[in-house]
């Protein structure tokens, strides 16, 4: 694996005069796991939107390896190897668990290619592996619409595993989960993290501590502090933002 670095510098996003991101800088090295925390409205989701092509930055540089992310659309960025897990799990309700995973499998994505598509034995094995890893084997033929909240999250994570992205963006993966579900999710993410770069956005500081990675704190659209969890928790500016003055 060649390994590409995510590089954001001077990124600003302005919506109707509101600066959602203000001169943001972030570098994620190949294979690194990074947690991004910050109060509501700090710009965490907007940052994800910029990286995945959903939002065009007003100013600044965003690159992945040699590719300029600010000039590509969502599909092109996804094909580049950047996967995204949304805060609210979005799976295709009318399709079965198996079909959801099959759609995410790396393969030619054009209409003609899809018309002529035949799932190979290898592809089927891969889908089955991911169903085993996510614990969804029993639900293979069920439409995704009838899954529980936790199962939907895992299915979405499973779809990311199928996409096999080089960089994975994960938005609040454990929000609204029971403790057991949180544990299972953390284990799944840890397994993915071994092979890929991961950026996790999370509110839950305990969960971030458990990840044991470098932490970036956002505040009002820019980086307030960066370092180990102990470092940022003891940073007086972070304490002020989180605990109020």
């Amino acid at each position, binding site marked *: 694996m060649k390994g590409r670095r995510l590089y954001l510098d001077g990124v600003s996003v302005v919506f109707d005069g509101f600066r959602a991101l203000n001169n943001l800088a972030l570098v994620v090295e190949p294979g690194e796991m990074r947690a991004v925390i910050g109060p509501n409205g700090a710009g965490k989701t907007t940052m994800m939107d910029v990286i995945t092509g*959903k939002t065009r930055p007003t100013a600044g540089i965003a690159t992945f390896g040699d590719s300029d992310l600010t000039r590509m659309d969502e*599909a092109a960025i996804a094909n580049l190897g950047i996967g*995204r897990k949304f805060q609210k799990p979005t799976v*295709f309700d009318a*399709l079965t668990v198996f079909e959801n995973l099959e759609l995410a499998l790396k393969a030619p*994505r054009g*209409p003609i290619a899809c018309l002529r*598509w035949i799932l190979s034995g290898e592809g089927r094995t891969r889908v089955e592996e991911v169903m085993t890893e996510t614990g969804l084997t029993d639900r293979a*033929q069920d439409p995704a619409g009838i899954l529980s909240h936790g199962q939907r999250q895992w299915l979405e994570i499973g779809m990311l595993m199928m996409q096999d992205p080089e960089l994975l963006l994960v938005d609040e993966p454990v929000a609204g989960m029971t403790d057991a579900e949180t544990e299972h999710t953390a284990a799944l993410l840890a397994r993915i993290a071994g092979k890929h770069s991961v950026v996790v956005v999370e509110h839950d500081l305990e969960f971030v501590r458990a990840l044991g990675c470098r932490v970036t704190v956002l505040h009002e659209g820019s980086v307030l502090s960066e370092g180990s969890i102990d470092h940022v928790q003891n940073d007086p500016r972070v304490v002020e933002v989180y605990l109020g003055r």
Partner: protein
Amino acid sequence: MSATALDTPPSRLRLGLRAGMIGAVCLLAAFPVLNQLPETHALHVSDFLVSVSGKWICYAILALSLDLAWGYAGILSLGHGAFFALGGYAMGMHLMRLIGPRGVYGHPVLPDFMVFLGYRELPWYWLGFDNVAFAMLMVLLVPGVLALVLGWLCFRSRITGVYLSIITQAMTYALMLAFFRNDMGFGGNNGFTDFKELLGMPLNTGAARAALFYASLVSLVVCYLLCRWMTATKYGRVLTAIRDAESRVRFLGYDVTRHKLFAFVASAMMAGLAGALYVPQVGIINPGEFSPGNSIEAVVWVAVGGRGTLVGAVLGAFSVNGLKTWLTSAAPDLWLFVLGGLFVAVTLFLPKGLIGLLQGRGK
């Protein structure tokens, strides 16, 4: 064939529907034959029923095409009648050219309306329509290119939902106004009529009617199988995914614009074919075919039958048109109220249409 579909045996409902469909096709296929029986015979099928069911078959093809766009790809087109009408006009142009010197004015090349309007020569866009192969190509190409341009502009700009519906509706309305104009060269509000022959067959004979009927029936079966194949492949599942969560599909790396365009263009071509089969059977095409009401009626057929199921679309086209034919002679003033009421009732009580009702029974 999807690998997953192989794992589950077809349900009883599905087998029942399949048997019903094959039965219905055989029954329809027998109509022109039973028409030959003496009128006193119990199994005699009247000329009226043959011609009206030939029309319904064309409507069923239009319903299938709309279902592919709306039921599967989530593109609610309120202007599919325009593609139907354009296919019809392309066929009409061919039929007009075949009249030759047999028109009222006896001009060797120009159709009657052109002589009447003082045309000196055939407009350039009428050239080639005397050739049947070229005309058939245009039947597919003209609606296809319009869908390609309109779809590309809309899908690229991510215009979806009600805004897209309004644009398609405006498109068919604009075309209607354009085709009403005499200087467009399509016969103005009279359109085309007085057709004489097609493929060397005089159109006013029973044999020609039967041939057109069978051509329509075969087209319906072929279009159904084509749609079924498309929707059973991974492409069909991508369309369903786009319908339900368009932006999520983009993050999986699919070019949503291209996928929607492909479905929209295929659908428009199918609608054009339906129009082309319709025109020689009814013997006339005029700008009224572009009227927005026609497109909305087609949406009602699909909604009543059950959108997102191909059998549903066909069933809807036949049942709503059957009701219309009966009601417009029994109580002509009521039809529009019934049509509106039907749409409201189906939306409120039968979101899956008649097919949903059958599914409910099947369980």
